[in-house]
């Protein structure tokens, strides 16, 4: 789609540019500033060059060790929740009722977890999963399955993964549902005449129509799980031990807990660069997918 070239359009973009620059560039410069300095307190700073970065990227040091542990944990977590939420979301979208009041009711119930403040999501699951007062924790123990998410790392992981599935699968499902709704009925009639199986309809009609929204879903879910903070913080506080200390939790501990500004700043920058790189890959794929079918462009 070619749009007229008009550089005066910058005037329309300028307010957004200014506010995002104010919110993004100024803080990032502060971070860059901290990342190359060290302090003994009293607001006295001295030049440390790339020292923090060398320490951070070397797994044998204390800082590097904890960074790579948290990074690895976080990547594992993102991979697990994507592997569960994407297929489950597709399945739920395919099972949505077709018409009537049921559609509205289902949509409202599905969207509900998405609008619960993240700390309340943590609270809900704490109240639900505790072995003494929670339905799930008490029920599992009553069935003879020992379960205690505050003491057992595996139980903590399972609880956090189930919580995330509860919280976010609806987003994937709603995106897929939007994709499915855009398929004209004629496609299904043609498939029926050809005698296509349910599986063939799925792979040749429904999945290709959904790949655009699935891309958005995977991008949003990956990014949000990669910066997850509040829910595990409320639920487990990063524990037991460090078993559920993800990158953001570790960073906040370092920055606001220990006030280790230099280390925290170096970690912030590396963390942000990883996010930027992944984001760029997705953006390129999305723009590319958009240019293949010009009538539905994605990136302006």
């Amino acid at each position, binding site marked *: 789609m070619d749009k007229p070239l008009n550089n005066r359009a910058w005037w329309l973009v300028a307010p957004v540019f200014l506010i995002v620059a104010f919110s993004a560039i100024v803080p990032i410069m502060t971070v860059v500033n901290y990342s190359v300095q060290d302090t003994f307190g009293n607001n006295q700073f001295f030049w440390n060059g790339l020292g923090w970065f060398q320490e951070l990227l070397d797994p044998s040091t204390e800082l590097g060790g904890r960074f790579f542990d948290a990074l690895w944990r976080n990547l594992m977590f993102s991979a697990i929740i994507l592997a569960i939420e994407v297929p489950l979301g597709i399945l739920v979208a395919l099972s949505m009722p077709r018409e009537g009041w049921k559609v509205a009711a289902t949509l409202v119930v599905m969207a509900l977890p998405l609008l619960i403040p993240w*700390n309340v999501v943590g609270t809900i699951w704490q109240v639900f999963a505790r072995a003494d007062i929670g339905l*799930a924790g008490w029920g599992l123990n009553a069935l003879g399955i020992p379960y205690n998410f505050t003491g057992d790392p595996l139980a903590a992981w399972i609880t956090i993964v189930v919580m995330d599935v509860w919280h976010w699968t609806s987003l994937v499902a709603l995106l897929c549902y939007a994709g499915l709704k855009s398929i004209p009925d004629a496609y299904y009639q043609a498939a029926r005449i050809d005698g296509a199986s349910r599986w063939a309809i799925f792979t040749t009609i429904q999945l290709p129509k959904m790949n655009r929204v699935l891309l958005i879903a995977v991008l949003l879910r990956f990014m949000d799980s990669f910066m997850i903070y509040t829910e595990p913080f409320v639920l487990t506080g990063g524990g037991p031990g460090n078993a559920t200390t993800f990158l953001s939790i570790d960073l906040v501990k370092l920055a606001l807990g220990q006030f280790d500004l230099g280390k925290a700043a170096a970690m912030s920058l590396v963390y942000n660069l990883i996010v930027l790189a992944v984001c760029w890959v997705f953006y390129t794929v999305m723009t590319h997918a958009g240019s293949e079918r010009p009538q539905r462009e994605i990136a302006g």
Partner: protein
Amino acid sequence: MNQSSRTGTLVMVVYLIFLMLPIYWLVNMSLKTNFEINSGVTLWPNDITFEHYIKIFTDSSWYSGYINSLTYVVLNTIISISLALPAAYAFSRYSFIGEKHLFFWLLSNRMAPPAVFALPFFNLYSAIGLFDTPWAVALAHCLFNVPLAVWILEGFMSGVPREIDETAAIDGYSFPRFFVKIFMPLIASGIGVAAFFCFMFSWVELLLARTLTATNAKPIAVTMTRTVSAAGMDWGLLAAAGVLTIIPGALVIWFVRNYIAKGFALGRV
């Protein structure tokens, strides 16, 4: 076909029960006395009490948390949408120098981890004297809500044929009048969806809201951490406060239920 739709219903019912169970438990807890909560698991309150809700509605340190939260959420939604509207129009109608890079840069800010920004935001807003006001949180949330609003609105605007702009120009409409009188009504559902998303992401965020406030502008999410006391957790009060945070979201969903599906695809289906 009949059999597959029956499995569909089954999947849906199981999924919806899975979604509702923890919420049911929260509501259940909020209606119990703390004595009943601590003395064993009961599936429904034996002795229904509204004491926790009454406490929240009569204690100003509790209900002011809700007012503070709603204040910065509404401020943020208004700022985000009004700034994003012209920008989204520019992205959907014109190409200009740096367009692609700018769009990517905006998008990347939606993805940036708030944890990275917590400390510098604290310094920044303390320095300009906005710390502990709703404005600090509202502006800080612009970091991710403005790019998101631009992204969603651009999708909806690209669906409006360009001939409408040209016809309006021939009819003698100035650009601002055309934009407000003709264009905005055409993308009203898009504006609604974008506002919904801004509301949602500002309402659910805790880390920045907690870092940027102390006492005067303290959001409800932070007030809720007060339920830990020397006498142990006040679970009933915590649950009641949680139930009350779900209600604004539920109301907003009810209003946009017909646009939810399209909105979640960010206007791009």
